[in-house]
């Protein structure tokens, strides 16, 4: 405990887990008539931008969805997806796939690095869309306590800053944090393979100096950026999308003693990664054209 410790148990509170379990149900009730939920997500706002998302979903990317039934209708579940494109379109398209195709179109929370909270405008809009900083406590509350649907992109920035010729080669899946998250929350992992996002906003080069100067997480050269400025954020190439929701890996199928065993965590993370990679290879091999599928 630090010098400022309060006498409360230190942050790794395994012995206390029973007590935590006991108070899990003391969650606040949902208040009617609000435009926001307690995470700052706004269903009203999502509905307002839905026409734009739906335009991209139906007409621009002509998204094809497979295995929507693998997304549980209730209870917590952690979707794990590949990630690409300078301003990754995969997250909103997966969200839209669930809204459009799923029998129980639930809110999807996107667990992402907390950098977005620092940028004016982005911070506000992102939270309204359902972005939540990928803090272990946030993941636990969302998935375990509140039983919600969340998606993570374990490649993180390593995925979205990938250059055009590295497409469909999954980056390292972090240190397997998402496996620990799912195991602690006791929720299934649903691997998701997104095909098409790689081609929708390819990056040809990074300008490190401008990156430093602007304080952006990266400053890429894409078909439309930087010459079209911020408008480039909406200028995707019309690649044909396919989103495959794969067979979930249920908590009962996690290896025993997973949480205390870094090797087993790494192994399961690798397993998820290779399932997504295999599916990507299969789908990319089978498609005849990037633009028509």
């Amino acid at each position, binding site marked *: *405990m*630090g*010098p*400022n*410790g*309060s*006498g*409360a*148990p*230190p*942050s790794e*509170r395994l012995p206390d887990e029973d*007590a935590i379990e*006991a*108070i*899990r149900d*003391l*969650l*606040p*009730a949902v*208040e009617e008539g*609000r*435009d*926001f939920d*307690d*995470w*700052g997500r706004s269903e009203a706002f999502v509905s307002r931008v839905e026409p734009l998302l739906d335009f991209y979903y139906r007409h621009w990317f002509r998204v094809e969805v497979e295995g929507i039934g693998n997304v549980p209708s209730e209870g917590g579940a952690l979707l794990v997806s590949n990630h690409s494109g300078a301003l990754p379109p995969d997250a909103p398209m997966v969200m839209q796939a669930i809204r459009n195709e799923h029998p129980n179109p639930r809110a999807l929370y996107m667990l992402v690095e*907390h*950098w977005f*909270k*620092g*940028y*004016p*405008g*982005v*911070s*506000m809009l992102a*939270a*309204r869309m359902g972005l*939540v*900083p990928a*803090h*272990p*406590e*946030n993941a636990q*509350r969302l998935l375990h306590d509140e039983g919600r649907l969340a998606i993570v992109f374990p490649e993180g920035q390593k995925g979205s800053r990938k250059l055009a010729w590295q497409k469909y080669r999954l980056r390292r899946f972090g240190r397997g944090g998402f496996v620990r998250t799912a195991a602690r929350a006791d929720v299934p992992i649903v691997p998701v393979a997104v095909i098409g996002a790689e081609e929708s906003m390819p990056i040809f080069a990074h300008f490190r100096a401008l990156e430093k100067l602007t304080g952006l997480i990266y400053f890429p050269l894409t078909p439309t950026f930087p010459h079209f400025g911020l408008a480039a954020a909406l200028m995707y190439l019309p690649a044909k999308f396919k989103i495959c929701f794969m067979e979930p890996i249920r908590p009962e199928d996690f290896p025993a003693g997973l949480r205390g065993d870094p090797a087993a965590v790494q192994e399961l993370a690798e397993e998820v990664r290779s399932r997504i990679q295999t599916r990507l290879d299969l789908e990319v091999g089978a498609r005849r054209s990037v633009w028509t599928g």
Partner: protein
Amino acid sequence: MEQSPDVAPRRILVTGLSTFWGGRVAQLLESDPRIEAVVGVDPDSPSRELDRTEFVRVGPEHTAIERIIRAARIDTVVDTRMTLDLGRIGRTAAHENNVIGTLNLLAACSAGDSPVRRVVFRSSGLFYGCSRSDPGYFTESDRPPDRHPTAAGRDLLEAEAAVAAFRSRMPGVSVIVLRFADVLGTEVDSTMVRFLSLPVIPSITGFDPRLQFVDQEDAVHALGHAVSKAPSGTFNIAADGVLVLSEAASLIGRRLAPLIPPIGTGASISTLRRFGLPLSEELSGQLRYGRAMDNRAFKGTGFHFRFTSREAVLGLRNHLILDPVIRGARSPYRYEPEVEEFLRRSPLVEATHGDSSTAGS
């Protein structure tokens, strides 16, 4: 969870009696017939009418407390004294009260044969600071920032560290630390209340932070609960529900003016403060990153919040609408030592309470 106190509190010392916190908790405690005596201390006179609470004026460093504790056989100390709203009181005065006062008070409670068995310490969510990497809900085990960005925060960390040290030094004393979210209500005069009462609410361009509140009635009852029922430990006190600033503003019926620049925010805020706007260094962090706390641990001790964050804001709105109407009808309470003395000691005054240990022994 641990059990309730082995010894029911009988004789209570309340610090910060002149404030909303001390005054209201003293009123709550003195209305409980099981409590024998309530003694309140403060450098200033009480601002609320008290029935049987005895007031003792002390210096801001709270040095004379040990004698009072011993003489009145105090078993429970409710320390509401922390001043974290530096808008009103200078930094040095605040430090004197917050840090030196806490050290002296705890020293008074830890004397060899001290009768004190329970200490309730009022802290604040300010403890956790505000940053980009914060969790959506702070839990009690979360650590504060290594170097707290605000002066009041640094005071608070020093005080909480002293309380933590006291806790480990005095295993026989229950120590309850309550970290409060921003309290809203008719009687609260804080930077946050004055900020939300502005005709147009300024915010930082491009940020709509998550904020959480607690209604003043819940805040007072939380202290009461800590006195009689809560187990030793640290608890967040925040109502259910987290609002975003724009939502809070529209509930109050105010327009949001997102005009504080996101770069150079600190300088703009101190300039605006110089023009008299209710803004502070502490508020500036909240306006950018927001803050919310997990309240489930305290609920787990059996406490029930009567109002949500949203209802607390609506309560403030009703107050803002009604206040101009009823302000004239209320005559503010003024502390008159002779009158209080007469009411408490004179044989002519009939005791209104069954328990008259304070009235003419």
